[in-house]
């Protein structure tokens, strides 16, 4: 295998990306996918000290909900095991939102401000102090930075002729990203996932492109999709370096 990889973006946003990588082996593609899910750590609330909880939910249930609130995670400033203190104080009637959480570190904020924690009625109050800890998705799913990470084969669509004049028009559904004969990469939702919309009256042939993988990466907001992928690559790289050192002794 050549060590030449080629990356091409189809969509690229802050929290999600879709791109094609050529020259990958299935082993590397899957290694990176798995590393993005389990090996890139994020901050998540792990310990809560309740001052007052007169809401309708038990402390434990609130604790679970808090753990699922994504927090922005500056990975350069923290190491696995480090923690950050957060606090919240909301009095009813009001809804306590993730945006009400106060933080002791400017860099660590709730990634979304509009996640409801609990609705408080007249006279109910929620006050607590919490520690968020940096851990990997391996230890608990709340620490997964990548929430929708996967890949498919890139498929090539070729027009091989005209469809039979009296053939029944049947939809030809395909999902993912296709490569046209001109080498253009097209996401299938651009033509309603139906090849007969793009090639009406044509007979087409669909084949997998060897070694080309279409990744779809989406993060929970802890960091950008770029960061997630690069950190996953770093984690495999670091382990290979550690192994090489260990063997060399």
């Amino acid at each position: 295998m050549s060590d030449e990889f080629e990356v091409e973006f189809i969509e690229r946003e802050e929290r999600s990306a879709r791109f094609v990588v050529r020259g990958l082996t299935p082993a590397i593609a899957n290694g990176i996918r798995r590393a993005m899910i389990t090996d890139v750590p994020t901050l998540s609330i792990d310990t809560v000290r309740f001052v007052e909880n007169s809401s309708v939910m038990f402390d434990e249930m609130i604790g679970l909900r808090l753990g699922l609130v994504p927090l922005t995670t500056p990975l350069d400033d923290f190491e696995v095991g480090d923690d950050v203190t957060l606090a919240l104080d909301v009095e009813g009637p009001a809804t306590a939102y993730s945006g009400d959480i106060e933080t002791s570190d400017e860099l660590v904020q709730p990634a979304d401000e509009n996640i409801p924690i609990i609705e408080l009625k007249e006279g109910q109050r929620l006050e607590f102090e919490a520690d968020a800890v940096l851990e990997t998705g391996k230890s608990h799913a709340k620490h997964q930075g990548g929430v929708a990470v996967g890949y498919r084969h890139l498929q090539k669509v070729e027009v091989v002729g005209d469809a039979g004049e009296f053939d029944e028009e049947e939809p030809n559904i395909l999902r993912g990203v296709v490569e046209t004969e001109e080498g253009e990469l097209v996401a299938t939702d651009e033509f309603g996932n139906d090849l007969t919309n793009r090639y009406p009256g044509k007979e087409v042939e669909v084949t997998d492109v060897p070694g080309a993988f279409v990744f779809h990466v989406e993060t929970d907001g802890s960091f950008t999709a770029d960061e997630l992928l690069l950190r996953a690559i770093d984690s495999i790289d670091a382990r290979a370096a550690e192994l090489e050192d260990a063997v060399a002794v």
Partner: protein
Amino acid sequence: MELRVIDKTDEELRIEVAGEDHTFMNVLKGALLETESVVAATYDMNPEQSGGQTDPVLTIKTDGTDPLDALGDAAGLVQTQMGTLRDAYESAAGA
């Protein structure tokens, strides 16, 4: 990452790689199979069946080169691959 050699001859090696799972082992196996001196390579997670053994066991057979050297080469290859992949992604992201 802790390594425990189970068996070693001039051309064969069985080694336990503590604390790793499919994420790294499969990438490593892929790289081993691309290494010229390696004739055969596989790994076995075999968790419950082997009486509580949960760490993967890597088996390498070479053409006569020291299998530890082959393992070192493969680890180097993984680093090269990750390096080129990082560069490829960064240049595409920067463009």
